[in-house]
């Protein structure tokens, strides 16, 4: 079956060819590399010849607490004690700083001060991109030649991403954005636009507007690791585009499968409690 992106012929024998090529490279590193293939990746490929990203993945960091470098901090809910405290982290922002415009920097600080009432995660709202990627939950990539589906355990969020050029401007603002994917060699590039202004990037109040544009890059490092990068652009909030990056790790458990974190039922009392019929009077 011809590969749509590179025009190379790629059916299962190509896998064997790739293995041989890998072997040759190992023997003679200077002997040359495939045009479209990263020299580092020797993991499995799909029938269409692309790196096989099918599987269950998860970040292993504290970006969900704060994208920037941060020390450990006490819990926002006293009763949670150490179990609710923020773990320290090195941060995932290239250059460590997020280039907020001055008024936006003030809003981020205000968001952080009102985290428990203002963070959409507390209400189990859809997480947006890139936050869905590094929440402390697994997500599954389902890779076909025409579509890449990303299914997130948190809130059953999902994205069905056509592997195609963007056909039209986003038709409506959405929580998870309007995404199109393409392959850049062995890197899956996902272009996301059409966001609403209601999601955050982390629990530290980092935010964006409806002008957000995210370009994600999923570069396989091996069978079991992907380097994830997201370039974040939003001229209403930031002075320039900025970038986060982190590895994602494959769940290796033999019985790994996405479970449910349908958190709506965990926030109904919080959101609707005062509207429940009072019977015991």
């Amino acid at each position, binding site marked *: 079956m011809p590969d749509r992106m590179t025009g190379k*012929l790629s*059916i299962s024998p190509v896998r064997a060819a790739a293995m041989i090529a890998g072997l040759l490279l190992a023997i003679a590193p200077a002997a040359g590399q495939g045009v479209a293939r990263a020299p580092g990746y020797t993991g499995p490929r799909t029938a269409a010849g692309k790196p096989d990203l*099918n599987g269950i993945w998860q970040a292993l960091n504290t970006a969900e607490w704060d994208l920037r470098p941060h020390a450990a901090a006490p819990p926002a809910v006293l009763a949670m004690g150490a179990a609710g405290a923020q773990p320290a982290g090195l941060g995932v922002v290239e250059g460590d700083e997020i280039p907020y415009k001055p008024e936006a920097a003030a809003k981020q600080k205000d968001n952080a001060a009102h985290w428990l009432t203002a963070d959409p995660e507390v209400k189990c709202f*859809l997480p947006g991109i890139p936050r869905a990627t590094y929440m402390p939950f697994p997500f*599954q990539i*389902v890779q076909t030649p025409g579509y890449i589906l990303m299914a997130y355990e948190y809130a059953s969020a999902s994205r069905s991403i056509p592997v195609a050029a963007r056909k039209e401007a986003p038709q409506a603002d959405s929580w998870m954005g309007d995404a199109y994917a393409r392959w850049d060699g062995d890197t899956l590039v996902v272009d996301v636009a059409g966001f609403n202004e209601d999601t955050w990037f982390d629990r530290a109040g980092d935010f964006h507007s409806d002008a957000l544009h995210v370009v994600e890059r999923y570069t396989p490092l091996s069978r079991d690791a992907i380097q994830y990068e997201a370039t974040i652009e939003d001229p209403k909030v930031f002075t320039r585009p900025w970038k986060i990056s982190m590895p994602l790790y494959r769940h290796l458990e033999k019985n790994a499968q996405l*479970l449910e974190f349908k958190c709506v039922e965990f926030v*109904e009392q919080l959101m*609707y409690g005062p*509207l429940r019929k009072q019977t015991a009077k």
Partner: protein
Amino acid sequence: MMEKQMAKFVGVLALIAAGSLAAQTRPATPAAAKKWVAPRTSDGKPDLQGTWVNFDSTPFERPGPGGASGAPASASEGAPVAPGSGNEHALIFTDRKPLVEQRASMVVEPASGRVPLTPWAEQQRDYALTHVQDSWEYNTPWERCITRGIPAAIFPAGYNNGYQILQTPGQVVILYEMIHEARVIPVSNTATTRPHLPASLRLWNGDPRGHWEGDTLVVETTNFNGRSMIATSAATARIRSVPQTENARIVERFTRTGPDEIQYEVTIDDSKVATTPWKVAMPLVRDNSYRIFEYMCHEANQDFMEITLGGGRLKDKAAENAGNGK
């Protein structure tokens, strides 16, 4: 250089494959010519992939003893569209014309076209329907924006009846437009490959396992949490808000019957709810032009907060005031 050799090799393979494919599909007899064979995925399985819809005007059940088409048999059964339930709209508009011929009912077994509900199930349903304004827990999981459940997620409602199916070796994935749920179904014909989750782990949508019976994908789902409902939209009339217990065993069958059609069948076995297993059958129709958009639900569930629950509290207030002679 190696690329060229590979290309030759692949070319020869392609010729061989094309030859064998032609041999397979060449009709042996005129009768065989009529038999349509589903296309295959790269790993040789029937290809169910695509975007499918089921805008369908067929009543869920045949008319009951009461007579009129789809009319409830008792007064309490009229409650599915109780004003203020936040669900009336499901009956009022559909955003697409029906695409398939109307049948007598979606329920095809038993032959009566009626679900043999137990008195317990009817009582549970009636209690929930008369208390929808008291608390979220009496509403269907769909109104709560948790899930439409399995199999209910594929029972057509008035709108957003879109489903995308993707396949990779060893799994079939169904993306349900409503509540943006991706259902990953491990598929294997070796029973020991992926046993069901332990009985102690239960989910809203259960734990599905698939296998192929000929060209039919058969999916068995168990491990339900007992908090869902067997059907959630007003279009399911008498069945809406009927509970689904932890013991429910759901067997779905997906069969490609033509270039643009999948026959979907589901058998629901839940003895506390219905006296015998019952079956629903309906076609799914391919619609490549159908675009699945994000089904934002919980994020803007204003009807639920303001009309269903908020409206309920306003009624309480009015009743209290009336009681005080105000």
